[in-house]
């Protein structure tokens, strides 16, 4: 197992390198003039030329790429042509907000999707399982952007239950930064006002993401449950007189967690992409919003930075899920000997 682990980690930098090369080439193929954007509309031609020189855009593409890689390794991810602010600190500042949102959303769609999936999978009523499947698929069918706006109209405008935008109330001081998660930090520092406000603000964007994805979780779980219920050890359990609860939660669930694990890896990729739109709708100051602004203005250094972060995150998560298989099912060993 250690050998396979080592192998996976060794491949990681190559995959990331490949991502950066592809993104670099694509963003440079698009006809755009970042020097012009950085210099400003009314800059004279000399100012633009000076900016182009400063940004190293006159060098051949390969030289630019190698220069970029060198800078990357030294921790210099360049600066935005639009805002002139350095990329890495901005991404690092934006990351905790997105991670917190994705974490809450993940916990949410697991907490909702697993019981519903078990319900669907173990229910003897076809009507119940059909109804549940239908409503859970509804959430998936709507574009997440539209869902966000609808939730705002419902929970903010009509019911006045939840705030529409932001990560914390405007009159509320954010908690002292320890982990970067407002919820955790307010809990740790005992800042109850910040805690309440943070939970209020994360509710809608998280609900949006949850509604959009719990169906996938439920589906995977339902499938796993149905398969488990038909298996030998479950029949043995029933024969031994174990309670339904005990069978489902203590025995079948362990095996259901395997498809859940698979699904988590996939969901994470979707969540990263979905975060871009959700953060725009709810003015959530995370990396998704940073990505959206950079893409819209073809600001290629921030785009490269964001792509780097997204790809590393995605690769790592899938690495983790692969490793979790070892824990959940010893039958699946790293080398694949069943």
């Amino acid at each position, binding site marked *: 197992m250690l050998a396979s682990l080592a192998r996976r980690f060794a491949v990681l930098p190559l995959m990331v390198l490949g991502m950066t090369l592809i993104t670099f080439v694509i963003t440079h193929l*698009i*006809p*755009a*003039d*970042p020097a*012009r*954007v950085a210099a*400003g*509309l*009314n*800059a*004279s*031609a000399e*100012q633009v030329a000076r900016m182009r020189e400063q940004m190293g855009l006159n060098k051949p593409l390969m030289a630019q790429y190698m220069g970029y890689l060198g800078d990357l390794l030294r921790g210099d991810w360049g600066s935005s042509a639009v*805002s*002139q602010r350095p990329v890495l600190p901005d991404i690092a*500042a934006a990351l905790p907000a997105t991670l917190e949102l994705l974490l809450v959303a993940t916990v949410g769609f697991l*907490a909702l999707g697993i*019981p519903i999936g*078990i319900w669907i999978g*173990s*229910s003897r*009523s076809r009507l*119940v399982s059909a109804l549940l499947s239908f409503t859970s698929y509804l959430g998936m069918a709507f574009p997440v952007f539209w869902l966000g*706006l609808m939730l*705002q109209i419902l929970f*903010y*405008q009509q019911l006045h239950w939840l705030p*529409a935008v*932001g*990560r914390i*109330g*405007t*009159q*509320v001081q*954010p908690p002292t930064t320890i982990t970067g998660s407002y919820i955790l930090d307010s809990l740790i520092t005992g800042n*109850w*006002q910040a805690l*309440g*406000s943070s*939970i*209020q603000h994360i*509710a809608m964007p998280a609900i949006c993401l949850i509604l959009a994805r719990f169906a996938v979780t439920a589906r995977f779980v339902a499938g796993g449950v149905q398969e488990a219920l038909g298996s030998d050890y479950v029949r043995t359990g029933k024969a031994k*007189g*174990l*309670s*339904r*609860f005990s069978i*489902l*939660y203590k025995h079948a669930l362990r095996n259901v967690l395997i498809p859940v694990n698979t699904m988590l890896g996939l969901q994470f990729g979707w969540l990263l992409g979905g975060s871009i739109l959700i953060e*725009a*709708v*709810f*003015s959530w*100051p995370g990396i998704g*919003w940073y990505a959206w*602004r950079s893409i*819209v*203005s*073809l600001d290629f250094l921030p785009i490269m930075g964001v792509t780097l972060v997204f790809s590393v995150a995605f690769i790592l998560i899938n690495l983790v899920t692969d490793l979790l298989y070892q824990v959940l099912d010893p039958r699946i060993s790293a080398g694949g000997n069943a």
Partner: protein
Amino acid sequence: MGTSKWGAPLFAPAGRRLGLLTQVALALMAVVLLGGPALARGLTIAVNSPTTTFDPSIGNSVPHQRLLTAAYETLLAIDPDTSEVIPWLATEWSVNDDKSEYTLRLREGVLFHDGTPFDAEAVKASLERTLSIGQGESYLISSLREVQVVSPYEVRLVLDSPQPEFLYALTRMFMISPTAIRERPAEWFATNEAGTGPYRLVEWVQDQRYVFEQFPEYWRGWEGPHLDSVTFRVVVEPATQRLLLESGEVDVAENIVLDDLPALELNPAITVARSSAPRPFYISFNVNRPPLDDVRVRKAIALALDYDAAIEIALAGYGSPMRGPVPVQFPGFNEDIEPQQQDLEEARRLLAEAGYPEGGFSLTFLYLEHWLFERTVGLLLQDALAGLGIELVVEGQPWATMTARMDDPEQSPDLVMFAQSTATPSALSILEPMYRTGSEHWSHFWYSNPDVDRLLAEAATEVDDVRRHGLYAQIQALIVEDQPQMFVFSQDEVMTLRSNVRGYKPQFTWSKILNYYDIYVE
């Protein structure tokens, strides 16, 4: 072994956990909602883009200037009603005969937010800083050679060459505390301020909100009703801005989309304040590319568009006709120029005369992709030109791509729609970049007319205002004749506010920016 069909035990543990968390959240919600202070005399404004830098020497667009005008001030200002230059931090001025030296008398008793008094040294330090950084709107003072401190409250600006309209530039240069310039590194100015303006920055949460409070020692004083604070909240999504405005959570929403305005007009709690503003939109022809090199073809295309429909449909009525290249509000505007009207008969005649009686060619029309109203104009033109046998391909591109294409004569589109920025009411600042042969400005489209060049050169140094305006009039007439562009419309300035917000007046050249000092909430 039986359990209920609904699997009650399955949900109990989950239900209990969730219940506790919800209860805690609800309790805290109550605390927060009930305990929040009401800033009754402050103003909250929803804006759709964050301010990337608060540096007054660099900021060059609305997201920067909306904050800068709260905390910083300029030497002179433009009167929104008369378009004339009025005193501000400078109270009087005199100019030498050939307009190459401007002597300003400064206002006494003005303090910067850090306590430094405003004086001639401050003017010198501020102008020199902006000039040396060389970004933002510094191009406006590029002819400034020297700032002489004549006395503590008198300063002389010596220019490289005569600049008849240099006073306009002084309405855009912010005065910065010399102490801050001396003692603070450049990065400090990105998130802090050292101005003389009515409001000072008290909280800067990057990309989320910016909070300002009254500066007690502000030189105009605080008699009468005023805002005690101004808060900017970054809300990217216009639909969300609308929700916040309607619920009263924000007092002003700056970026409501045109489609939402009719509904908001009907809402008594909201005022849609509309005023005509110098925000001209042009469609430029690539005059080097046949058949657009023939003025008759250009004129025919210009006569094809239904300009009234363009305003009604693309701008939802929030616009006014353009009369030539210079905005009607600018001094030196040629009153004899009439708005262009659709005339398909004349268009057909001109096309026939030019050798294209059935049309028979195809053109590309480029617009800025997220300005959908420009696309609407493109479609209107496409429809009209189809009737003349001309195919128009309508394409949207992001700004970075547009400018790259516009810079390259090979890739330059046949028609491109854009807006011109109007930092100062100087007709020259509109005419020179767009029409002078060899101008390298992004808005220049290969147009060349030696008569226009001659008149531009004369106007640039003509110190007599009346004569200079006469030259402007001639240039405008020539441009209208040559038709290197279509003059589509001028977009109104529209501000959506809660109806209890009083005192708002559009600020002419600070477009889409509020006059914070004069506003108050009833």
